[in-house]
């Protein structure tokens, strides 16, 4: 029984980790290449989730909702960079924190005005609501498997793009030394805008996919944002590979800890105390992990070369 539960939780952890990676992949490049503290990345998740949910409800077709929402998030990211973000490169970190904090407030309220404060609920189609036996007698939801697969596919795509293509080489160069990259005649402005929009799209995709699993509501992106910041810091700012490893690690620690710690505590605490303390301490463990990593490796586990 316990081993089945553990396996299930490990898969849930993988799914959470992959989702975090999709959010963190763009953000780590934004932080690393543009040296820009972008707190409104969680809003991109929310925008993606809302776009997909609204279109799904309107057309009654889940796949169409996702397909239509992807370009919407890309355009949102592109416009946001063009309208506001590009004026903030090279400013103080505190200015960036403040301005993007303002963006969070704006997006949350805009969504609240547009869709109301209550959560939107969508269901994925019945073809995805089945279970697969990952091991004999261990059924696991197809939809979550699908999230893991799509996430891995995206990760592979991002990896190949960054390591094999010409634009990817510019991205890597930008991550290790932005000034030198610009000096070599690469149009950094366009590169930045492209990275920004792509990052927004992946974050939006994460939001679209987890939408049916969680509630689509204003402010849904912020807890994810904080976690993906943790991921980025542990992985090393600007490193996509580091973000991937750290995301899986955080996803597993958070999810498995949330289930296992209360069970562990119940062996020596009262049930209600363990139920309160367990999940909270599991959330704490993520930050403890981050603090330990930073104390021993102040630039994260996989800092990009030359940084």
């Amino acid at each position, binding site marked *: 029984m316990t081993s089945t539960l553990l396996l299930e939780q490990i898969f849930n952890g993988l799914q959470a980790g992959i989702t975090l990676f999709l959010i963190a992949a763009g953000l780590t490049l934004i*932080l690393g290449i543009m*040296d820009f*503290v972008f707190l409104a990345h969680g809003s991109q998740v929310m925008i993606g989730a809302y776009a997909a949910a609204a279109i799904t409800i309107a057309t009654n077709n889940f796949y169409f909702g996702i397909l239509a929402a992807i370009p919407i998030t890309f355009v949102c990211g592109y416009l946001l960079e063009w309208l*506001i973000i590009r*004026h*903030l490169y090279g*400013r103080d*970190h*505190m*200015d960036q*924190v*403040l*301005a993007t*904090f*303002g*963006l*969070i*407030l*704006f*997006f*949350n*309220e*805009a969504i*609240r*005005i547009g869709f109301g404060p209550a959560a939107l609920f969508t269901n994925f189609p019945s073809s995805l609501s089945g279970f697969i036996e990952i091991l004999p007698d261990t059924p696991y939801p197809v939809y979550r498997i699908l999230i893991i697969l799509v996430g891995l596919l995206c990760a592979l795509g991002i990896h190949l793009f960054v390591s094999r293509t010409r634009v990817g080489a510019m991205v890597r160069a930008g991550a290790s030394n932005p000034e030198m990259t610009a000096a070599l005649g690469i149009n950094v402005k366009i590169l930045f805008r492209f990275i920004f929009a792509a990052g927004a799209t992946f974050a939006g995709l994460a939001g679209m996919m987890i939408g049916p699993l969680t509630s689509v509501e204003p402010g849904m992106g*912020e807890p994810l944002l*904080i976690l993906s*910041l*943790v991921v980025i*810091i542990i992985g090393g*700012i600007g490193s996509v590979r580091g973000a991937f490893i750290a995301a899986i690690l955080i996803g597993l620690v958070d999810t498995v800890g949330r289930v296992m710690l209360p069970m562990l505590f119940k062996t020596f605490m009262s049930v*209600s*105390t363990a139920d*309160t*303390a*367990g999940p*909270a*301490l599991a*959330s*704490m463990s993520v*930050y*403890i992990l*981050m*603090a330990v990593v*930073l*104390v021993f490796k*102040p*630039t*994260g586990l996989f800092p990009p070369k030359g940084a």
Partner: protein
Amino acid sequence: MVLDLFKKFTTLWIILIVLAFFPIFTSTFDLPFWNDVVMRIMLLGMAAMGLNIVFGFGGMVSFGHAAFMGVGAYCAGISQYYGLDNGWYQLLMSAVSCGILGILIGFLALRTSGIYFIMITLAFAQMLYFFFVSLEEFGGDDGLIMDRSDFIFFDLYEPLRLYYLIFFILATVSIMLMLLIRSRFGVILQAIKSNESRVEAMGLNPLKFKLTGYVISAIICGLSGCLFASWQEFVSPDIMHWTRSGDLMIIIILGGLTYLAGPLVGAIVFLLLEELLPDLLHVLFPPISENWMIIFGPLLIAVVLFGKGGLMGVMGSKLKTAANREKT
């Protein structure tokens, strides 16, 4: 000396004097609600002034100072839970606990810099947040209802006593900060902000000064949190939510981070906007009167994009240009 401090920090003195006489205004016009707003202004302003020692004067962007407010508030709440009602004792407890925590967190966090420092301070704040969520004995997520603490010279259930207690602590902190900023320590801290390696080359250890600044700011936030608990008659982890750390930064940058009075000016503007924007929206666009943040968010972005130096900076430069015009 006193005159010197007065000349240097005129805005801060004027604000303090206005705050001292503000209850006369509210009682004349029978607006007791505004006393409450001003108490919040003073509490958040005090916390922001504390944060500004590291943030504005030391150049360290700490994204986790709400945690110290929370620790201060819980010092009051937990002491009272065990029957220790004495408010002065609770203030002392808050100062000591935040001081010790400040040393620990500061020592570890100051090993990093830049974005990593922002994030590690956030991490420690989140850790403390979830720590207090996990304490079922003290209400966990739901928090702890408490009475106002028992400050021997101030019976806080008499009208205005809490107001003047908060004012008294705020004024004391302000005067000490005026002295601190002009002391050798304050000057070195600001020098570290502008060029750390030069300070190091002069044979000083920057870490020592940064850590001291961090601890002092933690203690001030703790005092504010301890009083906040009495004001709210309630403590919950909400007081140390990461968005409050964001609020404190907003308050500082709104007011102007290179000025001692900046955070107080910022707190006044921030909380007045919070009170008045819904009313304003109610008149202009009734359907979205609850959604004042839709105006507030872009306002913040505008402040960052166009208003360098915050309100104090804008006012200062206006005054200067006016003075220059008079001269020529």
